[in-house]
Structure formats: C-alpha cells, structure tokens
C-alpha cells in the first residue's frame, strides 16, 4: 500500500463530505422555506420592471 492508495481513500472521503454538505443544506432549506417561496422565480422579471420604470418615468 503506497501513498496513492491513501489518496484514493482521501478522494472517496472528500466525495462523501461534499455530498453530505449538499444533502444536509438541501434538507434544511426545503424544510425552512415554503415551496411557494422557493419556486417564486419568474423569467424576465428584472426586464419587466425596467420596462415599467421607463414607462412610468
């Protein structure tokens, strides 16, 4: 068993860590915020607002 074998184990460990960080945060966010809030993004909203300001201005 040489250094590269330890690096292999390290890579598995880091992969699991990044996976866990994502999953834990995902669960936290999905249980904290409502589905309505999370999916409230609308395409072109900024442009629509700019247009509105221009018309109002």
């Amino acid at each position, binding site marked *: 068993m040489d250094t590269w074998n330890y690096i292999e184990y390290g890579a598995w460990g880091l992969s699991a860590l990044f996976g866990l960080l994502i999953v834990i945060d*995902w669960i936290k*966010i999905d249980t904290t915020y409502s589905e309505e809030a999370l999916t409230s993004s609308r395409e072109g909203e900024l442009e629509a607002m700019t247009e509105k300001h221009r018309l109002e201005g």
Partner: protein
Amino acid sequence: MAHSEDVDHTAHGQSMGLLRVLGPAHVWALGVGIVLVGEYMGWNFAVGKGGAYAALIACWFAGILYSCVAMIDSEVTSTVAAAGGQYTQAKHIIGPLMAFNVGLYLVFAYTMLEAGNAITLGFLVDTVAAMTGHEGGLDQRPFIVLAIMFLAWLNYRGVLATLTFNLVITAFAFTAIIVMFLATSPLLGAGEMLHKDLMSGQASLPYGWLGILAAMHFGLWYYLGIEGTTQAAEEVRSPARSLPFGTLAGIMTLLIAATLTWYVCSGLLPWEYLGDGVNGAVAPLFSAAQISGSNALVWLLGIGTLFATLASANGCINDASRAWFSMGRDHYLPAWFGAVHPVYRTPYRAIIFLVPIALIFALGAPLDQVITFSILSGLLGYTFMPINMIMFRKKWPLDTIKRGYEHPLHPLPAISLMALCAVTYFAVFLGYGTQLIAMIGFYIVVSLWFHFWRYRFVKRADQFTMPWPRPRGY
C-alpha cells in the same frame, strides 16, 4: 442577515431569483472554460481521420461554423436576458415543442460532456500516479466521483465563486498554450518544429479529400460549447453588453488557441501518433511538451490539461442546471426543478438532480459513446440556431427591438451555419451513423410525450415574459 431579508422579500410578494453578479470576464470564462479541454485532448482524432492538413482545414471550417454560432447567439441573447439560453430563445421565437427539444439538447450535451470530463480527469490522475512510480494501476472511480461532487458543491454554493474559479483556471490553461507555442516556435524558442518533414508526401493527406470531410466530426471539438455563454444571461449585471462581449472574445480566444495547438502538435508529433487519441497522443499538448524535453513545459501543460478538464466540467454543471431549471420554471418539466436557493441564489434542485445522472454515465459508459452523445446533441442545437435567427429577424426586425449586438451580413452567417451543419451531419454519419439515428429516434419519442402529455401542464400565458412588441405580421 441575508436569510431574514430573503424571507421578508418573499413575504412582501417579491420573488427569489438568480443573482445578477457576473461581468463579461465571467461570461468569457464560462464559454472558453467549457471548450478549452478540446484543445488539450480530443481534436487530434481529426488528424487520425485525415492527417494534419485535414485537421487544420477542419479547425478553420469549424471555426467559421462557431463564429456564426457566436454572432447569432450574441444578437439573440442580448435581447433575451433569461436563463435557459437557446431554450429560452426557442420558446420566445419558434414555439414550445422546439423549446422543449432544444432544452433537452442542452442538458444532454452538457451533462454528457461533464461525464466525459470526469472520466478524463480520472485517467489523468492515473497517468500521474504511473509517472510517479505507482504500480498496478489506480482505481480511477474515487477521482471521477470527487470531481463531480466538488464541482456540484461549488455550483450549489453560488455562481460568482463558481465562475471566478473558472476564470482563474481557464486563464491558466490558455496561458499554458501560449507559453508552449512561444517556447517551441522559431519566434522565441529553439525552433524545433518539423512540419516540413512530418507533413510531406503521403503524410500530407493520407486519406485524400474524404479524410478532410471525416475530420470535420472532430473539428467541432476545438470549439464545442462556446454557445454555453448564453446560460449566464439571467446572472450577468449587464446582459446586453456582457453577453456579446464575453461570447465574441471567447470565440476569438478559441480560434487563436486552436490554431496554435494544431501548429505546436503537428510540428512535433508524427500524424500517426498524434491522430491516435487512444493508444497514442491521448493528451497531445502534454505529449508535445514531453517531446520538447523541458520539465517546466511538462509540468505547465500537465497542470493546464487538468485545469482545462475541471473548467469544462464546472461550466457544464452551470449550464446544464440553468437549462433544466428554466424548463422546470416554465412547467415544461415538474415545477419542483424551478426552485432557487434562498441564500446562495442558485438553481439548487436542478444542480442536485443532474449529479447522479452525470455519475451514472461517468462510471458506467465508455468515453467515446458519452462524447458522441454530447457532440450529436450539440449539433442538433446548432441546426436550430440558423432557423431561430432567420425567424427572429423576420418577426422582430432591427427597428422593433433594440439589440445589444447586431451581427453583420445577415442572413449569410445563418445560411453558412446551416450548410456547415449539413456537412458535419454527413461526417458524423460516416463514423457514428447508428448513434445518430438512435438519438434522433429518442428525441422524436420524447417530443411525442411532450406534445400529447406534458404540454397540458405548461402555463401558456406565463412563459412569455420579455417586454417585446408583437411580432410583425401577428
């Protein structure tokens, strides 16, 4: 603090959208970052198909094709400042069925490319291990999985950090190509180039003109993915300026990098070795650095290869997730995918959903099949672009919508793009006819599913949000 502000925003009826934090340099890094790995490996299969001259001709013809792609994309996307890129363009300009197909082309092209990059990264680590004396071969799987998980985590955490990371590693990889050229060419270096000896006689065009045609398939590899800059449209501070600037600077960078790469590699490596990307020059720039005899160049190009691979996978995760997110937001897919992370402001569910798909292909499918699926999906997307452009100019002429960039000589770039796509289809058919037919069959089946089932869930009025005038003739 940001957390509570976001809660307040939604409580007061404001939505949580993606953040506008990117500049033109990030757009450049996204486009060039996805592509530059093609200079480090892959393009040299074109040499195997038709020799070094054929690869150069394919490089420049594909360069024309992608210049058309970049110009067309720059004009349209400077007016459609929303995530989804070509999917969103298709939705506004052509119609829902085209948009659904284009969205799938994008997701498959980028996810397959991400898987291909991860496989390559595993191979690179294995090569480094062998070079440092490790015997018995390395288990590549942990490195493949790590690359995908790390980059998914980075993308999950925020777009600014993700694309700043891409900017740094892409700039490094591009600089490495320039240094390699300067160090080996007669301009500053020792002038070790052997083009005259390596490309004369039978070696000039070993398979004649048919070889040039066949080389077009892999000629795409020099530039495949530059169109991905449009996916940043909803996250750049000034879409009308940044997107055309970043995209056009990106294609110029790639034209330079592709030509220099060809010059260096074909001047140092015999075409038989260079053209064999499996048992010969797997990473041709790295092989050329080894031939040069300079340890510094070997390290530089080795790290450059690694960075180019990472940058490509990183950009692919960014782009595939934006396309998937946009389709979810419009209910073309379940609306669940249209969620935005309230703190990091990323399409986090789309990012998470695509991770296992990338892992399955990276760990379970052969590299050439994964890459071919990516190229074919990309090619279908390029075929849509000229149709899109012609309809865009017809429905919304120049005096009806202000563009951030107006591409010159319309409709010549659109017609050229269509003609070059036809040539490339034929070239792909020569080598991968079965896959091409199978994939078109797949897209026909999913189109039927969308038309007869899924479209009933789409909120028809909600999906057209751009403040555009009515199209001419309607």
